[in-house]
């Protein structure tokens, strides 16, 4: 009889050994609530990363605008009777280059001037028949600019029809506009981040609510609060990271594709307009770093919410212990 029992146990052990695999995780794999949480994390991470990307883009573009404008000044010479325009342009060029802080000067030739006027005057017009002003573009050292007042005075004395435009008014407006745009962008980003935080927190709590019974059983079979919290935290950290990586990855992909599209459609009207407004769509390292930070933050947020929820659930279970009237909590 004993031999028979021993044989039976040995047989079960053998079968069991063959079929054994690593124990299933204590926290159940994705259920409907967990899947909903992943979708919420993906959407909110995508929106947050997209907003961050746009803010970075606007910030970088505004910097480029400011740099481009502060690197150049323009001298415009209007035609006058008995004036040799080409001679006046050369005089203005050599005069400008005499000032400390000017790096180079380039006369916009007749062909380029005609192209500039093409949208208004059409093709094939004769420049000599119209009183068209000519331009001289001067590149300056933006860190050590020339004395514009002195340059303007000397220029007017030498060539009365010349006008120096240091772009200061235009640059001031543009900088102000760019700063406002970045300010609005940071505001929007803050709102999206707050919305992401709240949505992720509430979605995590929703996903955790179905695990109340598991937490209770673990607590009753002798698991310490930290053990239960760690198990759930590990699971939801991965869930948050997974959702965040997909959302953030999609946002990075959108910027990557837009950048490729911009490169591929260079020199088209649509691209020119987009480039004029936004510059290049290629996001710098800071943009991608920001996306990575958002992904990690979302994962940590999810894990932290889980930990707090588990500890709160265990406290509620223990609250019933100290107050039987609170049995509604379990």
């Amino acid at each position: 009889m004993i031999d028979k029992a021993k044989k039976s146990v040995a047989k079960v052990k053998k079968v069991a050994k063959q079929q054994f695999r690593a124990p299933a995780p204590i926290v159940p794999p994705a259920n409907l609530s967990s899947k909903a949480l992943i979708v919420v994390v993906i959407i909110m991470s995508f929106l947050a990363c997209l907003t961050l990307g746009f803010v970075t883009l606007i910030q970088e573009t505004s910097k480029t605008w400011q740099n481009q404008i502060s690197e150049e000044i323009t001298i415009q010479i209007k035609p006058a009777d008995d004036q040799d325009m080409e001679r006046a342009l050369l005089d203005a060029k050599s005069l400008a280059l005499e000032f400390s802080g000017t790096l180079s000067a380039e006369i916009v030739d007749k062909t380029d001037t005609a192209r500039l006027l093409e949208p208004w005057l059409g093709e094939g017009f004769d420049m000599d028949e119209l009183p068209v002003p000519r331009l001289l573009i001067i590149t300056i050292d933006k860190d050590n600019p020339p004395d514009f007042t002195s340059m303007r005075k000397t220029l007017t004395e030498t060539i009365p029809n010349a006008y120096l435009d240091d772009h200061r008014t235009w640059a001031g407006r543009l900088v102000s506009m760019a700063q406002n745009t970045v300010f609005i962008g940071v505001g929007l980003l803050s709102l999206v981040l707050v919305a992401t935080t709240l949505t992720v927190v509430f979605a995590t709590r929703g996903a955790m609510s179905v695990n109340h019974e598991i937490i209770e059983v673990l607590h009753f079979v002798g698991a310490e609060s930290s053990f239960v919290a760690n198990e759930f935290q590990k699971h939801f950290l991965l869930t948050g990271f997974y959702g965040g990586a997909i959302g953030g990855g999609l946002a990075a992909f959108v910027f990557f594709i837009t950048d490729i599209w911009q490169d591929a459609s260079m020199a088209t009207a649509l691209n020119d307009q987009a480039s004029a407004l936004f510059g290049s769509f290629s996001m710098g390292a800071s943009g991608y770093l920001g996306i990575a930070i958002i992904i990690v933050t979302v994962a940590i947020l999810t894990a932290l919410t889980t930990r707090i929820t588990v500890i709160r659930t265990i406290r509620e279970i223990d609250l019933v212990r100290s107050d039987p009237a609170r049995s509604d909590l379990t």
Partner: protein
Amino acid sequence: MIRLENVGVRYGMGPEILRDLTFDIPKHSFQFLTGPSGAGKTTLMRLLFMSLRPTRGNISMFGRDVVDIPRDELPLLRRRIGIVFQDFRLLNHLTTYENVALPLRVRGKDESSYRADVIELLEWVGLGERIHVRPQVLSGGEKQRIAIARALIDRPEILLADEPTGNVDPPMALRLLSLFKELNRLGTAVLIATHDLNLMEQVNARHMILSEGHIDIYDR
């Protein structure tokens, strides 16, 4: 091991469910708790499992007053108690083996150190062929046996079982009872809450009869 003195429990402003309970559960003892439905058996079990505190009176568990036990120490004390819930409380995503091994797993024990013990116990309760099955496909009786095995796996100092044979046929009930007796023989105190008078007749043990909140104890 466990001592109750003038213990009373009420929920909110309602009447007292349990009144003036005074008794003790000595080490290595075996007792049945019985009484009509609604007499407060499950509430008493919860008191003994420290998932409920009395509204009056004192309970001493393992030499300590339950009121003075900090929340963080509760899991460690519960490890000395095996409990079989009336509604089993199995985790549906874990297999039979994993459910039974759960108390050992949460104590941080290595799986290879307890595998043979878990399989042996499952064989004892007649679930040797159902090791890798999840609770959803098991009968009520099989689930009950898993819950019993889970309560016994770490050789607790006291076993609290709420209707542990309520869903099994008489031969299996006797088999489980012999398991409880064997456990008791090895040193575990046993308290079984049951309506099954036939089962109570099988063991020469103390009978605790709960009625209208009072308890009457018949030592044998």
